[in-house]
């Protein structure tokens, strides 16, 4: 058995067979010399030809590539995940493959690092989950995922919030009219007040933005916000949302986003939209979620 040598890495599942030209082009771009960057620690060079190909079963195509067990086996993978350069190369590859397939058809993207020991394992998985996958793909047909992240410059925001808030303004006058000790306490009270006003306003504006974007979508999801250490931004992330948008509604979605940007820019909110993405956030549509749980019970 040849397959014993290598592992099977799964990118995505489709209902239609991807064009051979697309697949060949992907394989070419992946194994093209020069792709491997300098400074990559060993073991890195693949011993297996990284050919991308579809595995057919149950009316579905699993888009896979063979990977080296040294690199992607349990032990090797663990080591490689601690190497950011390796991670970057491989997550970008994962995304690139799925995006290329997505240009011509609806895809069901899999989580990074879904690996099988054999092709039979992939087929078995398709047999077990195929019915769900087909329904999900049918549901996702003609739709795309869009991301919106909102960042807040809290300093700018506080400055504009103070101007609008009567209570803080009144405290200003009281502070300047008070003696040192009292002024100190009042200043402290004012700081607390500003903090709570800012928090309240930011969450209000964020919710408003989310709800308005949501109205143009079929499904919407709020994800964890990410810390500054990884966003490389001066502003704090206050919303990390994903929207499933019908292809015919992308313009409407974009219009809302543009309007929000204009409305909230002077308040210190920064909007970042991106897409279309493979539907990573909508692989388990709500409508099937409930039914599946029910099935399990009965």
């Amino acid at each position, binding site marked *: 058995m040849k397959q014993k040598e290598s592992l099977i890495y799964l990118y995505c599942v489709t209902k239609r067979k991807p064009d051979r030209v697309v697949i060949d082009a992907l394989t070419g771009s992946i194994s093209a010399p020069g792709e491997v960057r300098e400074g990559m620690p060993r073991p890195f060079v693949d011993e297996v030809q990284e050919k991308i190909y579809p595995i057919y079963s149950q009316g579905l195509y699993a888009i896979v590539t063979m990977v080296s067990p040294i690199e992607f086996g349990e032990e090797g993978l663990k080591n490689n*995940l601690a190497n950011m350069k390796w991670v970057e190369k491989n997550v970008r590859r994962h995304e690139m493959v799925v995006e290329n397939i997505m240009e011509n058809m609806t895809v069901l993207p899999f*989580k990074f690092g879904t690996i099988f020991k054999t092709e039979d394992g992939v087929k078995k998985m398709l047999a077990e989950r195929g019915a769900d996958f087909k329904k999900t793909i049918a549901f996702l047909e003609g739709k795309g995922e*869009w991301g919106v992240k909102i960042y807040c410059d809290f300093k700018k925001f506080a400055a504009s919030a103070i101007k609008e808030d009567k209570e803080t303004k009144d405290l200003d006058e009281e502070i300047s009219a008070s003696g040192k000790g009292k002024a100190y306490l009042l200043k402290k009270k004012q700081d607390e007040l500003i903090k709570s006003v800012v928090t309240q306003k930011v969450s209000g504006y964020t919710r408003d933005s989310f709800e308005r974007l949501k109205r143009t979508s079929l499904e919407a999801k709020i994800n964890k916000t990410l810390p500054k250490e990884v966003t490389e931004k*001066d502003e704090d992330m206050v919303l990390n949302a994903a929207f499933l948008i019908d292809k015919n509604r992308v313009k409407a979605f974009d219009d809302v986003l543009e309007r929000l940007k204009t409305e909230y820019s002077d308040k210190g909110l920064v909007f970042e939209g991106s897409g279309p993405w493979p539907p990573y956030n909508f692989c388990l549509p709500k409508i099937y979620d409930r039914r599946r749980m029910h099935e399990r019970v009965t």
Partner: protein
Amino acid sequence: MDDIFLESKDVTLLEILDRVLDKGVIISGDIVISLADVDLIYAGLRVLLSSVETMERLRGAPFASPMQEPG
């Protein structure tokens, strides 16, 4: 393509990680990445970014990109 790219899709590593690490179809394959592994990757990203920042500072170049003009 009839899709409009809202922003240039010069995608940051973070945008990709934010999607591919713990979203997408999650099944019990033969080998999978655990939640602990995901944390490990984010920790790695943090170290990577902070080391880039330190390098840029040492070179005297401003690391922080200019604040994006919204709208």
